[in-house]
């Protein structure tokens, strides 16, 4: 199971990831202070970080071929866990009207976070196994959609809208990269879009609900739905260039709901200002950009599976951070998307760290000697 590449992980990338994790730890603590007013969540998140980092370092020792081999099992396990959520109370856990958690007494496990990673690992393997079909006909596309649908229905039932979107689009973008016919992909996407448009267009209530956010002036709109957006913008505006100082924000106290999860970026904006926000943005850009490069490097060496995994992880991160930041900057209506590595939440943090560890491992394998490269996928 364990195997050494003889290489050290990329120092810059590793440092950036660790810095971002520590930064997120402090900021989500500052944001959660208003709600919990104790160190409990700081300690809990610290525990998750230590757990995540130790898992991450062990993953650096495991070759990617191991994941390719067991990706089907991994995917199957995720599906089962997703379904377990629906079991009654002692096992399944309900909060804010949605069932997304499995109760492990000490902490609550969110299988949809695991599914995001499992889908990438499985999809990469599937695309390689079915390469001919995928690149040749609509049949491959249909199969992909079937796999995506299997998890999407479950996450939809959990009313986890964010996870559904991320998993679906990540899978489709991997399909796109794996060389499916653009024409067919476009036809499929267009069909879905047209169906959606027809569904929405002819019902004024639905279209209004969907486009209301962009159509009406935010500041003349008194509805509760945009309250969070307004408060996020006000918080960011309060911060100005250098911010009010760490822990000195006031929006988190009464005005801004969910400050330590979805809205943590707005809190960064208020407390650390434009400088803080740009810092976070550049860290993510570096990590994701580097990740894309590692994926392409792997493809250069002919190791497709690794390449697809790296690409999948990067597009997942890109989408999740992009949507979350857009929400915080008032460009999109608020839906539950967390900011990876920074927002409070155990499952999300651990699987993000695992995913980044995979990228680091792929990079190490890229740099390994030719002899070793023979065994890598």
């Amino acid at each position, binding site marked *: 199971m364990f195997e050494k590449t003889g290489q050290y992980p990329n120092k810059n990338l590793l440092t950036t990831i660790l810095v971002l994790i520590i930064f997120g730890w402090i900021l989500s603590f500052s944001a959660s202070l208003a709600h919990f007013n104790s160190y409990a969540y700081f300690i809990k998140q610290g525990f998750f970080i230590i757990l995540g980092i130790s898992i991450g370092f062990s993953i650096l020792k495991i070759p990617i071929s191991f994941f390719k081999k067991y990706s089907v099992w991994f995917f199957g396990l995720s599906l089962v866990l997703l379904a377990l959520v*629906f079991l009654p109370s002692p096992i399944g856990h309900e909060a804010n009207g949605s*069932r997304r958690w499995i109760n492990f007494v000490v902490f609550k496990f969110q299988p949809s976070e695991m599914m995001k990673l499992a889908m990438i690992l499985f999809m990469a393997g599937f695309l390689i196994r079915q390469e001919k079909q995928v*690149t040749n006909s609509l049949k491959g596309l249909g199969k992909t959609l079937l796999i995506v649908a299997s998890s999407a229905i479950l996450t*939809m*039932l959990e*009313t986890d*809208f964010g996870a559904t979107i991320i998993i679906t689009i990540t899978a489709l*973008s991997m399909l*796109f*990269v*794996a*060389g499916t*016919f*653009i*024409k067919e992909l476009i036809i499929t996407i267009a069909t879905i879009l047209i169906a959606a448009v027809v569904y929405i267009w002819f019902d004024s209530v*639905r279209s209004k609900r969907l486009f209301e956010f962009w159509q009406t*002036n935010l*500041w*003349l709109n008194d509805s509760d739905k945009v309250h969070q957006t*307004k408060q996020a*913008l*006000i*918080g*960011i*505006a*309060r911060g*100005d260039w250098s911010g*009010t*100082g*760490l*822990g*000195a*924000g*006031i*929006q988190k*106290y009464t*005005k801004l709901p969910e400050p330590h999860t979805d809205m943590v970026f707005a809190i960064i*904006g208020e407390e650390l200002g*434009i400088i803080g*926000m*740009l810092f976070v*943005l550049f860290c*993510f*850009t570096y990590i*994701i*950009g580097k990740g*894309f490069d590692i994926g*392409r490097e792997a*493809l*250069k060496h002919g190791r497709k599976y690794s*390449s697809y995994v790296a*690409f999948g992880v*990067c*597009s997942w991160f*890109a989408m999740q951070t*992009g949507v979350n*930041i*857009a929400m915080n*900057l008032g*460009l999109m209506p608020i839906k539950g998307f967390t900011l990876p590595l920074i927002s409070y939440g155990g499952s999300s943090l651990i699987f993000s760290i695992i995913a980044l560890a995979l990228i680091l491992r792929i990079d190490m394998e890229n740099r390994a000697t030719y002899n070793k490269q023979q065994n890598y996928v």
Partner: protein
Amino acid sequence: MSTQQTTKAPRSSSIFLSRMQNYWYRQGFVKYIFMLLILGFIFRIITIHALDAGVISLQEKGNKQAAYTVQSKARRGNILDRNNQVLASNLILKKVNLDPTQVQSAFIPKLSQALRMPETELRQAIEKKLAKKAGRKYLLIKKNLRLTDPILDNLKKLKQQKIKICKTKSIKNKLSLFDKALQFIKLNTQQRGHHNPKICQKETIKGVALQSDSQRYYPKSASLAPLLGRINRNRQGVFGIEGEFEPVLAGKNGKTQLNFDQTSVGSYFNPVVINKLKHGQNIVLTIDANVQFYTYEAIKQAVEKHQADSGSAIVLAPNGEILAMVNYPADDPNNKRTYDAQHYRNRVLSDKLEPGSTMKPFTLLLALDKNKITAADNEYIDTSKPIGHIKPDSKYKQMNTRKILQKSHNLGTVNIVERLSKEDLYNTWHKLGFGQPLGLMPSIENSGSLKYFNTWSLADKHALSFGHGPMEANLAQLARSYLVFANAGNLPSLKLIKNTSINETTTRVFSQRSTAKIAQLLDSVVSDEGSGYRAQIKGYNIAGKTGTAEMVVDGVYNKDGAKRTFFVGFVPTQKPKYIMAVRLDYPKKCYTAWDATLKSKCQGSNSAAMAFKDAMKPILATDESI
């Protein structure tokens, strides 16, 4: 396009490489889309501060919503009399507020008992509120409850009681997960059903709130109402002292802005005082509540007995302090339901009128001062020939000064005034303060008039000698002029606010010798021989002068014989302690002295003089120093 051509070509290793290249570009494509997105975010992050939130900038809005304004109400000052008796104060009251949406209907019988009102009435009030759309949660059921009110005790007990209350609760049916998901993606818009189980619980009463309130309270009720005035619904003073000294009494409401702020140490409110809170100050009047009360009762009785339109009186101390200022009719200011602006009119200060015969002593005083008469009992003044249009009567051919005052003889006075110059008259009247403001309550005071002497005709001069013609004065000015008898010819100014710091300045008007002489003559007016005989009080030396003046109604002297009757007097004659002026407007029923049922023409002697006596008697009885 090239993609399609290559992918459709037959598979070979070389083509595989070129396909590889394509995937390469596809990965790059996704990467650059992401980079573009990041650029967009950077732009947005930097420009977000320049955004406008509606009318104001986003940053201003942020600062604004972090600030709270706290208002603190100023306490209104009390009004006290010279002995620190409370004349106007704030009473702490309670009011009961119901929230009709919360009050359980099973509690209504008990609540109506506690509130001491009929159950049906309470039920109706609650139902009426519930039928409304706005303000359903606010029903003011009882207000102005004193702290000792039994209702408050009842409510306290009621709030501890628990009774079993059953109600049907509407619970939403549970949704299957599939339906939930359908609803989530808006495919299923069907509403959830309900089931209604009956739930019984022991509960305490809900929705009853006791709130604090304050009310201006005037313990002396109507007796001081026209002087003190009252406050309106907005708690601003209107009329009287309340209106005149509103800025002093009301104080200033405080306004503090609390800015929510936060440092790494902790959160706190940073207060910025915008308006400093300043409580109202107390005002101490020179009024003596007891003197005021006795005078009020006497005037009230007199007005009712003589069926006068109104009555007023003022009582002065020798140093010019006002001990009582009475007006009738008056209302109880604690009764908020009745309100008549006329009943808050301070007639003492705001009516200018011709004082009539009460001015005669001053004509004689001036003549005595100028040595035109000696005022000795053996000096006779001829009253047999007419002067101007004033004709002699058959009864008196000649009289001495004592007789002139006793009988209030016009021709005699005119005869004396013939010996005086217009200028001397004007100067003296001016020194007595006629036509000049008293400065007590500038907003309501009418300072009367005194025309300049070179505009006077001869008839004006004659009329002036008995208080008509080119002068008009209010009752306070008239009473003040009588202060010369208490101050040996000096005239102090009037004072309504007790303030010891002001240095007293008096003006000398007459000589001590003359005032003493005329005071002695006035003493004989209030004797069995004089017109003021009905003002006599056993055991006291009273000096005074009656007066009757034609009333001017709508600009002309009233043809129906409307009279205004006066009496100004002081006690005791030698060293006066109380100076009092009484005025009755248009008394219609007066009686002769020898038969209390026989009607007679109303004059100062048979109306105002009696009111003087009624008022002065209890005042003197309670004053042990005389």
